[in-house]
């Protein structure tokens, strides 16, 4: 037993949601006065973990110790009473209330038990804002009138208005300008000097090097590394942990001869202001082209713009040499495009419906006459499409929400297969898919390409792009920085390209 137990010690935290295990036995130790960084890709389990810590989610299993004592965080209020405050990425402020009212929301200083002492609330708020280096924010102003950076300061003031021992900050720098980030780091420094612990979540490795003490890396709901030294662990090692080299992926063989023929999908000087710069791209039938890049590099935006879900600022998308009407999903679908979006549940699936109806939704005219659906034909077509992809269970009448992540993805692919789509856009196709099911999904994608589809694949997992794609475009901050056949690239080269600009490893 160490003489001084850690401030916070979470061990074996497990949390499942229907169809997905978000946390699978995660450990996290936080010492008083340290900045503990939490790293991981989207979907790695970071937000679930901090919601457990904030008392917003109840873990299925595992223990939480606070100053050495086992505790149960039944509600956000329970966590707050212990001294745990969370500053979420989407700030949870009430826009139509003043700064002071927001800071003291739920624990207003009162006279006679219910009359809010507005003066005292304002005074203490002003003091907190001064401590945070923003005395210019007027406690009487409405929060909705403030800038994003100022709102964040208010959120922090709210955390500090409690007797706080640990602050969780979820991507606090995402909305900030560089000089505001400096101020944020100064605040973090002041807090830790007072013995407050900070759990800091960010995608930006250079920030973690500047202010972090230790790093815990999450991947697929597990802590793949805990308590690494933040300043001395090589970047490459951290990224490798995030992108997950601990699993050996099995990729299908590429065809012997490179794909021939005219490009099926062509992108010419496509650009969207503030998201990605003009680039060219072409995909032939039978070819898989991959886009590699970190979160925020513009990958998903590119796919959605090609698909017509976002309107481009300039440029063209051509299918079979014919330009598509920009910003029209229907035109894209009619021309033979199909998208398997990043957020399957929010963007692709009808969660209340059966697999059949999810598969048939894009090709209802195929088995209907005059709007009248031939349900037998529909079921038969859905069964054929899902069988071709070996979707389990082999019963398309079951509700789609009962399927595993991998099989839900297959249902989305079956939708486009049934539609007879010729260009498949895959956005993070294996997110939320079990490791075992991935190889099968890769094989399916390759087989679809072999059958003549053009596939454009986006993934933040570099090995996935390198292993599955024939050609790779590397993206950094909305710019295509490199294009090469996948055979000529290796993971280190790609990581160097996507990470360029952050402190060298």
């Amino acid at each position, binding site marked *: 037993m160490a003489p001084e137990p850690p401030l916070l010690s979470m061990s074996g935290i497990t949390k499942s949601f229907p169809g997905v295990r978000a946390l699978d036995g995660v450990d996290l130790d936080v010492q008083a006065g340290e900045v503990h960084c939490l790293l991981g890709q989207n979907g790695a389990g970071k937000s679930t973990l901090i919601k457990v810590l904030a008392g917003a989610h109840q873990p299925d299993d595992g223990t939480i110790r606070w100053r050495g004592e086992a505790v149960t965080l039944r509600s956000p209020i329970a966590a707050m009473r212990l001294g745990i405050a969370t500053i979420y990425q989407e700030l949870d402020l009430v826009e139509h209330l003043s700064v002071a009212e927001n800071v003291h929301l739920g624990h207003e200083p009162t006279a006679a038990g219910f009359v809010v002492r507005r003066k005292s609330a304002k005074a203490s708020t002003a003091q907190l804002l001064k401590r945070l280096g923003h005395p210019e924010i007027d406690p009487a102003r409405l929060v909705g009138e403030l800038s994003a950076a100022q709102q964040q300061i208010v959120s922090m003031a709210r955390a500090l208005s409690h007797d706080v021992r640990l602050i969780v900050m979820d991507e606090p720098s995402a909305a900030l300008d560089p000089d505001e980030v400096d101020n944020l780091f100064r605040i973090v420094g002041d807090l830790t000097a007072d013995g407050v612990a900070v759990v800091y979540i960010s995608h930006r490795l250079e920030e973690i090097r500047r202010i972090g003490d230790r790093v815990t890396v999450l991947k697929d709901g597990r802590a793949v590394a805990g308590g690494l030294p933040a300043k001395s662990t090589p970047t490459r090692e951290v990224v490798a942990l995030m992108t997950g080299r601990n699993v050996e992926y099995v990729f299908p063989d590429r065809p012997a001869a490179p794909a021939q023929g005219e490009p099926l999908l062509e992108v010419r000087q496509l650009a969207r202001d503030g998201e990605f710069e003009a680039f060219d791209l072409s995909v032939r039938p039978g070819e898989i082209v991959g886009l590699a890049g970190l979160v925020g590099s513009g990958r998903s935006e590119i796919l959605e713009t090609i*698909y017509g*879900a976002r309107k481009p600022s300039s440029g063209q998308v051509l299918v079979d040499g014919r330009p598509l009407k920009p910003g029209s*999903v*229907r035109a*894209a*679908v*009619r021309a033979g495009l199909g*998208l398997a*979006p990043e957020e399957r549940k*929010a*963007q*692709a*699936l*009808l*969660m*209340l*419906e059966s697999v059949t*109806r999810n598969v*048939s*939704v*894009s090709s*209802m*005219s195929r088995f*209907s006459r005059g*709007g*009248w*659906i031939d*349900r037998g034909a529909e079921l038969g077509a859905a069964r054929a499409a899902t069988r071709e992809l070996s979707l389990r269970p082999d019963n398309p009448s079951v509700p789609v929400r009962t399927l595993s992540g991998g099989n839900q993805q297959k249902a989305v692919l079956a*939708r486009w297969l049934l*539609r007879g789509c010729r260009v498949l856009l895959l956005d993070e196709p294996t997110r939320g898919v079990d490791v075992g099911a991935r190889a099968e999904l890769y094989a399916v994608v390759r087989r679809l390409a072999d059958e003549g589809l053009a596939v454009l694949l986006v993934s933040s997992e570099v090995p996935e792009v390198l292993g599955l794609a024939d050609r790779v475009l590397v993206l950094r901050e909305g710019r295509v920085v490199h294009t090469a056949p996948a055979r000529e690239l290796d993971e280190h080269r790609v990581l160097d390209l996507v990470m360029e600009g952050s402190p060298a490893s």
Partner: protein
Amino acid sequence: MTQPVSPPRGSTDKVPPVGQLPAWRGLMARADVRTLSLLGVLAALVVIGGITKPDEFLDTRNLQLVLTQASVIGVVTVGMTFVITSGGIDLSVGAIVALASVWATTVATQEYGFGGILFTSVLVGLGCGLVNGLLIAYGGMVPFIATLAMLASARGLALQITDGKTQIVTVDGILDLGERDAYILGIPPLVLVFAVVTIIGWLILNRTTFGRRTVAVGGNAEAARLAGIDVRRQRLYLYLLSGLCCGIAAFLLIILSGSGQNTNGNLYELDAIAAAIIGGTLLSGGRGTIVGSVLGVLIFTTITNIFALNNLQSDVQQIAKGAIIVAAVLVQRRTASTT
């Protein structure tokens, strides 16, 4: 129970395979629990009515009356069910019924006779639905606000047309339809219209691409859009459909009352929403049931009838309605969390 008993040879062949239940149990499994419980409530109400007022409640004329009263609001509810299933709401149905009923009964319209009245009712309903649909689908307005504005304007216009006076219908063909002579096999024509609208509504929702698109838009509009469905056009059609149902209901009301009044259809929006919700249609969209909605309408109309027969005031009726809505939603939440 000490030793496992091995079955005699060949007996396993006789065990029916899982999934092949006797016909009636298969039927029970198909009809969902909610529909059955609604039928149970309705049956219980009939029993209560039969016990408290045996002679009056079970009288054929009374049952015909109950069904006739259910017909007007029932047609409106079928349209409302579509709108709610798509994740929308239509607060203007009562006002549209009022406007359509007075527009169709002005002296000028009545000159065109039966056809003029029918045509005008339907056209006014469609026109209001078109405005709702355009505002919501292409104007980006929230359904609640757009249809609230329609409620206010349509009521106002109806008052302007009538100047608050009741417009008596003098066209013979119309009034005859409400007479007993017009009953077909003892069923009032109004009830037949309601039945036809219900059947067509059920078929559209459950058997056509239009119904599928409605459910998809309500279940996940973004997914529907990315799947290639024209979500805006679908929304426009849905409010048109609701307007059409209001127009038909207005025509039924003209037959029933022999007049057009600007106070017609008062609070129909609340009755229709309540009937759809207790029927099992999700207010958040993505799931809708025509059968449930119709049962909801029948339950409410039967309660009103029983209370009236027992000389209970309408305030008591309203309280009972409120309690039923709360109970139905609580039951729904129960079943939703267990499935």
